[in-house]
């Protein structure tokens, strides 16, 4: 398979930042009461991840190794602030609900860890695709959780009323979010067990 495609696939399933690497969990539960919110935050993460990966990849030779981390943080903060200014122009209603977490993208461990592990070593094109992969993996995770919680919590999908009643309201509450993620993670583990015959140990969480 083409390496670039492989990088994207890698981010989507085998190293999905939410379910497999268990990085940056906070937004995964907090904003995903609906698909729309998950989509919005996911797109913001894709934007920040891709742009920071590219920036770091281009300027990697200029960044002194000792100030690497502060420089990365500034780069991320830069793109976060940019998206934080753009989103309210595009969709003010959804932005209101995810505002705090868009600002908090700056501390998402997934982004800085990709900069450190990948973009600081690789050229621009693979870095771009790696950023895309991780970003879309994140987006996919958020949308999956969002869809489950929105459907069971409010009987809707993407704001369209499907059931007409609330099947299990707890799903849109904090407790339901934790349950959903726990069960999705267990499902991922179960699939891996069925395929490889080994019970995986979930990744370090931060």
């Amino acid at each position, binding site marked *: 398979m083409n390496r670039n495609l492989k990088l994207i696939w890698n981010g989507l399933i085998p190293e999905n930042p939410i379910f497999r690497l268990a990085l940056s969990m906070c937004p995964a539960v907090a904003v995903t009461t609906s698909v729309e919110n998950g989509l919005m935050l996911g797109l913001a993460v894709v934007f920040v991840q891709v742009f920071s990966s590219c920036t770091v990849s281009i300027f990697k030779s*200029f*960044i*002194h190794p*000792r*100030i690497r981390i*502060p*420089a990365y943080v*500034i*780069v991320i*903060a*830069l793109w976060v*602030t*940019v998206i934080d*200014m*753009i989103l*309210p*122009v595009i969709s*003010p*209603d959804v932005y209101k609900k995810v505002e705090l977490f868009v600002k908090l993208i700056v501390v998402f461990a997934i982004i800085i860890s990709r900069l450190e592990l990948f973009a600081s070593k690789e050229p621009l094109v693979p870095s771009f695709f790696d950023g895309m992969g991780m970003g879309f993996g994140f987006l996919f995770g958020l949308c999956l959780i969002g869809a489950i919680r929105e459907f069971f*919590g409010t009987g809707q999908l993407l704001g369209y009323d499907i059931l007409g009643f*609330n099947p299990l*309201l707890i799903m*849109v*509450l904090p407790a339901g979010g934790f349950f959903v993620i726990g069960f999705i993670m267990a499902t991922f583990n179960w699939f891996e067990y069925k395929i490889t015959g080994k019970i995986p140990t979930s990744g370090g969480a931060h």
Partner: protein
Amino acid sequence: MKEIFKITVSLTAVCVVASLILGFVYAKTEHARKLNEEKTEQQTIQGLLGYGAGEKIPSDLKVYPVYRYVITSDKGKTLLGYVLPIKDNKVVLAEMDLSGNPLKIIPITVEPSALSDKAKRDNAVNAVLPKGSKSLYAQTVFVADMGGKRLGYVVPGVTQGFKSFIKLMVSLNPDFTVTGVAVTSAEEDPGLGAEIQKSFFRNQFVGKTIELLKKLKVVKEPLPPNYAAALDPAKAKAKGLTPEQVKEIKEKHLKDNIYALTGATISSRAMTNGVVSTVKKFVYRLDKLNEAIKKEQLSVAF
């Protein structure tokens, strides 16, 4: 030592470049963001006036904001000050005492469009007041005007809900009959109090005249099913009710009290109190304002 110097310079450079980019993006987006905010507010107001999404807004519909200030004059007296739009795209500050007698009318030398920004408006008001007096922004109400005739009013209100404040907006027609209620922000419990935002609850207020509002109560009876269907446009459509039938059902229940949401009596009562007190206060003030405008022969824009 040289290395430290190098590190410092490069970090500073990174920061400066980042700030410059941010400054650029900020300058580009700030205006659009503010416009967007205004647009959302405008849409809420238009929706309340009966021009929801998808409906064409007539070109001669104008919505004029009227800002109310509480002014403490240099002699220590408390006055009310209304920032009113007048003909020829000008603005005045009309002062009146607490019982509604007009006192002074001071022209304000600011473009009406700049008044939507609170800081700019506060400055403009303070600039025309004599030294030593203080002003405190209180409320904005909107007057809708269509082709020189008053179409209605949109009044914001706030009420203590179950957990935090419920912010709402009520639209009235010129005879002070409620034409719409919107909840602009609320943090009630999902599935219980949050149902106040649903149209079947909000639309119970529609059509209530000021006399009906004054003795409005909340009852803990279940909402009659056909009334519920008539109140919710989507449900009415699903049930196949014709507009005439909907109108008929609504008229039949017009004098009913507000049916509380099941399990959320507190939120229902809060909402009802909020709507009633908002309308009562507004009607009281508008009468005084209209009298003052007549007395002073002020050529207001609406």
